[in-house]
């Protein structure tokens, strides 16, 4: 997996958002946010859960959730042990809820943030039919909601180790945006358990050059290591 490529791709998706926040267990989204902030000339606000240096919150753990509800967070990241074609995510367990075959840590803030943050970027490096499924076993957070449900937020894109998907809210499905080097329409289709839209020709995800890789390595060392020391160590190798 080319982590630098993913970091760059996610930074592109973040674009010129005003305020990006990253949650638990999110080293690559954190690095991408750092890159996007650097590209904004430092104007972008980035809040990293668990960081002292990269958080200006002062009101305790609830402030992330309150500020999301206030509309003060534009972009957030979520993942899923399973993600399905309707953008439902499962962070909880595989198999029967009462007697799971595999149990993960839990849903964290996803049942809330996925519905309140305008642009949620889904990130799941492992791209196979076990991860990207027709239907999740457990909906930690739903990809879409009935019109009467208060929901200013939702998915914007899905980033995997093989490709980028856009989320088409109106069609309620993903659309392939670009394939990472080494992948193509067929290899992605074969590895994906859900249906999605696909362009006639599939662009290739931009590959970072040496200078950009150095810049990213530097950001990982100087910023990401504070919160994710193990990730930073492995990244340096």
């Amino acid at each position, binding site marked *: 997996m080319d982590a630098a490529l993913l970091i760059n791709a996610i930074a592109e998706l973040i674009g010129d958002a005003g305020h990006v926040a990253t949650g638990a267990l999110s080293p690559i989204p954190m690095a991408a946010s750092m890159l996007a902030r650097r590209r904004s000339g430092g104007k972008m606000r980035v809040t990293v859960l668990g960081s002292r240096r990269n958080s200006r919150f002062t009101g305790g*753990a*609830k402030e992330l959730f309150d500020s999301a509800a206030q509309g003060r967070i534009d972009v957030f990241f979520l993942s899923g042990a399973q993600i399905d074609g309707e953008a439902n995510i499962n962070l909880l367990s595989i198999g029967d809820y009462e007697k799971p075959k595999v149990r993960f840590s839990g849903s964290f803030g996803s049942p809330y943030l996925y519905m309140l943050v305008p642009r949620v970027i889904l990130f799941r490096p492992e791209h196979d039919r076990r991860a990207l499924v027709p239907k999740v076993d457990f909906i930690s957070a739903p990809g879409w909601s009935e019109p009467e449900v208060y929901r200013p937020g939702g998915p914007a894109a899905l980033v995997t180790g093989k490709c980028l998907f856009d989320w088409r809210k109106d069609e309620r499905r993903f659309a392939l945006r670009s394939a990472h080097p080494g992948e193509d329409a067929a290899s992605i289709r074969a590895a994906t358990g859900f249906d999605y839209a696909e362009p006639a020709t599939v662009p290739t995800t931009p590959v970072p050059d040496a200078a950009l890789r150095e810049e990213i390595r530097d950001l990982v060392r100087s910023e990401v290591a504070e919160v994710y020391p193990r990730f930073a160590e492995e990244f340096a190798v």
Partner: protein
Amino acid sequence: MTESLQELVARIPDGAMLVVPPDYSGVAIAATRALVERGVRDLHVVASPSSGIQSDLLIAAGCVRTMEAAAVTLGEFGVAPAFNAAVRAGSIRMLDSTCPALHAALNAAEKGLPFIPLRGLIGSDVLRHRPDWKTIQNPFSDTPDPIVLLPAIRPDIALFHAAAADREGNVWVGRRLELSVMAHAARQTLVTVERVLDTCFFDREELVPGVLPSLYVTAIAVAERGAWPLGIDEEYEPDAEAQARYARGALFMETV
């Protein structure tokens, strides 16, 4: 003013509802080990909002009947092994929740409210598996607008670790205000600290906003490196090596 770790944990009866902080907020691991040693049973552990090695130690030792959390995880070090095994075996009752719901339900207790609404949640299976949560029509809306009400969580005991207390028994929590919410919400609050300072935090106005007043503190014990192998911001870093050792399969506290 302080007491021993053993005296402190003796205040936690079998069957108590115990609220604990997330790994980055000052976790009372030394007290947790003392609690395991005294053989507490049937705890209802509430993570505010997630928990790691602390809950895993308690589950491994058979102290837990009910676990209520948005997540139980060793973070970068992987799954919490005893928690994981217990859920799969059905040997603990798991109340899956979500971070803002736990914050809100504790906040409701802090305010003496029987319940509090929360946005989001609708369409999540977390909600579907919580019959104790209720979805109602927003009484202030003329159009359909379902919203979830959560019952307050009022723990018997809040337990956490902090860098310092002062001579009045006020505790420095700094920006970890989730610790204050826990203490406000709980009937009793037990705190371990690295040290007790012979000062009064209220003599320095700039410290006041980060202080949990002694009004909310039932008892304090000194436990040096009391969060180890987790860290506490002002004092020491988490011990990655010890946590990795634990994650590699050690289910018992001796190995930490």
